[in-house]
């Protein structure tokens, strides 16, 4: 695999807001590296600090400690003017789209180009190309009030891409959209990442968004990063309490399971179409009881885990475990709690 180049690095980043009731810490000691060309997810409950975090990346919020390094350049040392130039290489889209209501779709896309001082005719040409990419060429002279939510977000994406940024920051970009439109927008973002090689940072509170397109994910909880890893890793073996809360919502509660034997089977990317458990029952000739399961299908591969109750017999247990290990599944015995 090619060597991963870091495009954005956050080191010891902190943000404290001064309010009337004293200071509130929104971010503490955030260390994060984002690689060029990846789709990186940042997930957290509302109030965890993820929106502040994304605004610190382009310095819309100035961190109170630590540093943001973009392309080898520390942002805290830059003048306002230099910072504005840097922001042109970081596009951003928002939950509420934030389009200019008194401008047409085309004029909205031209807006960042006007700011960058691009000549008018050239800006118009580029804006038309971008609307083509997001599939809205036929709406170029329409005002945002006449567009649906998904179409507005497409215009916003075209606008964010106008100055050919290296990074696209998405702040809850699909949270105001219905599931079908969300899928379409995520597919567009994925396509842009693949075609244009733009690094994408996605802030969300929705697990499904992370599953859908992210390669790596950071879980942010209570102003801190709870854990970082590939989506597969964190999906199958969340280490932090915050991670387990996201990936096994409601399921991973402690349960009274005494007096019998239980195993946890972890699926981390096997073929989703092979009926492993059914085959195991047939082959081992032993009944099992599925107590808990959370399995998701990503790109035709299975991720998640199952907790099985198995017969109270050492030999049967051995057989089952051996069978499952042969199928490349991780198996662990679990006692009282899941």
């Amino acid at each position, binding site marked *: 695999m090619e060597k991963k180049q870091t495009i954005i690095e956050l080191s010891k980043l902190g943000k404290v807001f001064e309010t009337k009731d004293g200071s509130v810490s929104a971010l503490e000691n955030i260390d994060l590296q984002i690689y060029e060309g990846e789709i990186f997810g940042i997930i957290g409950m509302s109030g965890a600090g993820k929106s502040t975090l994304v605004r610190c990346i*382009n310095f*819309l919020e100035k961190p109170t400690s630590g540093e943001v390094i973009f392309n080898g350049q520390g942002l805290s040392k830059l003048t*306002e*003017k230099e910072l*504005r*130039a*840097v*922001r*042109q290489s*970081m*596009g*951003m889209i*928002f939950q*509420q789209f*934030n*389009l*200019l*209501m*008194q*401008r047409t779709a085309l004029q909205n896309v031209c*807006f*960042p180009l*006007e*700011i*960058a001082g691009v000549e008018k005719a050239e800006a118009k040409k580029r804006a038309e190309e971008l609307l083509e990419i997001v599939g809205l060429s036929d709406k170029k002279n329409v*005002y*945002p*009030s006449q567009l649906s939510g998904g179409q507005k977000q497409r215009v*916003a994406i075209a*606008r*964010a891409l106008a*100055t050919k940024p290296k990074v696209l*920051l998405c702040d809850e970009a699909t949270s105001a959209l219905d599931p079908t439109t969300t899928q379409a927008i995520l597919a567009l973002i994925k396509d842009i990442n693949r075609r244009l090689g733009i690094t994408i940072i996605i802030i969300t509170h929705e697990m499904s968004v992370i599953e859908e397109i992210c390669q790596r994910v950071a879980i942010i909880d209570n102003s801190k990063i709870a854990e970082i890893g590939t989506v597969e890793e964190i999906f199958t073996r969340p280490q932090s309490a915050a991670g387990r809360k996201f990936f096994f919502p409601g399921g991973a509660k402690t349960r009274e399971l005494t007096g019998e034997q239980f195993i946890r089977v972890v699926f981390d990317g096997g073929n989703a179409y092979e009926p492993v458990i059914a085959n195991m029952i047939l082959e081992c000739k032993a009944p099992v009881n599925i107590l808990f399961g959370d399995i998701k299908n990503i790109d035709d591969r299975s991720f998640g885990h199952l907790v099985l109750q198995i017969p109270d017999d050492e030999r049967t247990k051995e057989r089952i475990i051996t069978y499952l290990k042969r199928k490349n599944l991780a198996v662990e015995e679990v006692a009282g709690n899941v």
Partner: protein
Amino acid sequence: MFDAVMMKLLGVGVAETLFMTLLSTLLAYAVGLPLGIVMIVTDKNGIRPRPLLNKVLDVIINILRSVPFLILMIVLIPFTRAVAGTTIGPKAAVVSLVVAAAPFIARLVESSIKEVDYGVIEAAQSMGASPMDIVRKVLLPEAKPSLIVGSAIAVTTILSYSAMAGIIGGGGLGAIAINYGYYRYETGIMLVTVALLVIIVQIFQDTGMRLAKKFDKRF
């Protein structure tokens, strides 16, 4: 009562009223619009917070807004003489009208611009827009319909102030109403001037609302 001389007098009155109103509005906007923008920009949550400057301007605007126009006109007599060279007639009235209307317009502009969604400003900042870009390309264009409605309010308010200027010899329909209607008990002439003022206000207000609607792309 309504002879040729009177008709001519009313004609001149209308012309003077329009002259005072429109010129004052124009000049008051020349001061009030930038002042309103500065108030928004320097607000503690604005795009260039300058709390001290903001507070000073805020107090000045409030002081000017709280002095009744009639008294302001009298207080301003020396200033008016210095600027206009005279203290009577429409030209002199314009000076006081501008001083009274500019802070009022600043407040109107301020409230119109406040309606612009903060998210849009943030989006512009994320694209590297400077505060100047944001004022010129975001705040003013996005607030345009509201600013036009505000200007209709401003022009009608200035019109009614201009009638008050008649008291100290400001000219226009207000002076006619006071001189003929009040001092000489010619109720007929008073009613005619009032009717003319109503018609002028209607025209301004209507035009303003129509323009605002035409320029608003939000619906």
